[in-house]
């Protein structure tokens, strides 16, 4: 198979890589670019652990081909903190002890960030529906939802 050359923007920076035509964006991120924050929980679109945004749209990177990223803007969990400063969502996940094994956490943060960018004041129901494609086998979700609600409140400056 001949590899494909891809130029794209990743967390604001231009990047280039070579990938196989049938290689997923998740595999490119993890195995070629060393960005292992996005996790593979299922590889079939069911768990959301691999969540990233492509041109601002939340997607499962396990269901995107690496080749599709050409000229797109990709945002991953690695772009969420500003240097040493955690994003409010990251801080609130810690404050609420909303993680155990942590495999689901990057996906939840990327997904919740996409929600709050669209809707800074979601109801609990809206949070739960938006995050329905993010599975967590440890926490029972409650703490995650509370952390997101709390982060939203803080980000609104309330």
């Amino acid at each position, binding site marked *: 198979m001949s590899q494909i050359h891809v130029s794209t923007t990743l967390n604001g920076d231009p990047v280039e890589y070579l990938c196989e*035509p*049938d290689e997923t964006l998740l595999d490119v991120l993890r195995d070629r670019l060393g960005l292992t924050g996005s996790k593979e929980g299922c590889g079939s*679109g069911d768990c*959301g652990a691999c969540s990233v945004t492509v041109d601002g*749209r939340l997607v499962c990177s*396990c269901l995107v081909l690496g080749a*599709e990223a*050409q000229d797109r803007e990709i945002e991953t969990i690695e772009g969420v903190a500003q240097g040493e400063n955690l994003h409010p969502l990251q801080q609130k996940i810690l404050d609420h002890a909303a993680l155990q094994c942590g495999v689901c956490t990057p996906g939840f943060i990327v997904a919740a960030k996409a929600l709050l960018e669209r809707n800074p004041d979601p109801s609990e129901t809206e949070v739960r529906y938006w995050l329905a*494609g993010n599975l967590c086998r440890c926490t029972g979700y409650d703490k995650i939802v509370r952390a997101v609600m709390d982060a939203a409140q803080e980000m609104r400056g309330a």
Partner: protein
Amino acid sequence: MQYEAPQTLDAAVALLADARGAARVLAGGTDLLVQLRSGAIEPDLVVDIKRIDELKKITAEDGGYRIGAAVSGAELGEHEGVRALWPGVVEATELIGSTQVQGRATMAGNLCNASPAADSVPAMVAADATARIVGPDGVRDTSVRDVATGPGQTSLGRGEIVVSIFLPARPARSGDAYLRFIPRTEMDIAVVGAAVSVSLDDEGTCVAARVSLGAVAARVLLVDEGARVLIGTKLDDDALQALAAAASAACSPINDKRGTIEFRTDVAGVLARRAAQTAFERAKG
């Protein structure tokens, strides 16, 4: 596998028509990538249609809307015009998967994947939607109903691409709705899906109706008898009961772990009745 992302429809059709081995269209990839990764399919060529500008658009046309084949569920849901004219089609499409899946999944992909349980298809059939297909022999329009011919099977010829779905204009007092039964509240495959579209006259009497069912036969069904018993009524209890009976009678479902034949047959009637009630409420405005 070869991956191509042409910028024109002509180039996409030529790539598909000239492909030596198995070729597939890639829209949102939410079915295709799953099938690719599991080894269920091994295409030699994948043609990504998302770089073709005209397929990314929703355009108003003759009082209805033409939805490009590369428009995602999320984009459709953000379109106020389509939401207002065909709320049932939008709600059915928005039921597909999670937020992440919505960011990619298309109506045309849902149709061409040809699952009998595809959520948007009964709503499109109830809407009497048309698929525009472009291939090596030119352009043709066909009823959405005639695209999927059985589980995983379509009537598309070699090199043919669904380029858009057309949702027609409708009279003022019209409404549609889609409901599905799943064992959870979201993120699951329909055990039964039911879509109803109605138009009413000034007195609130039904003058036109279409009833469609998913997941209860090898293809999505159009239930003519269900429409017949609604027309001329104001959706009184007798009409609702007749609709439920007609919907159940049309079913020829499978038995599986998701639902038995008896359960699916019964639930099809219940959902058709409830979808009709919502469609009527929407039609009254």
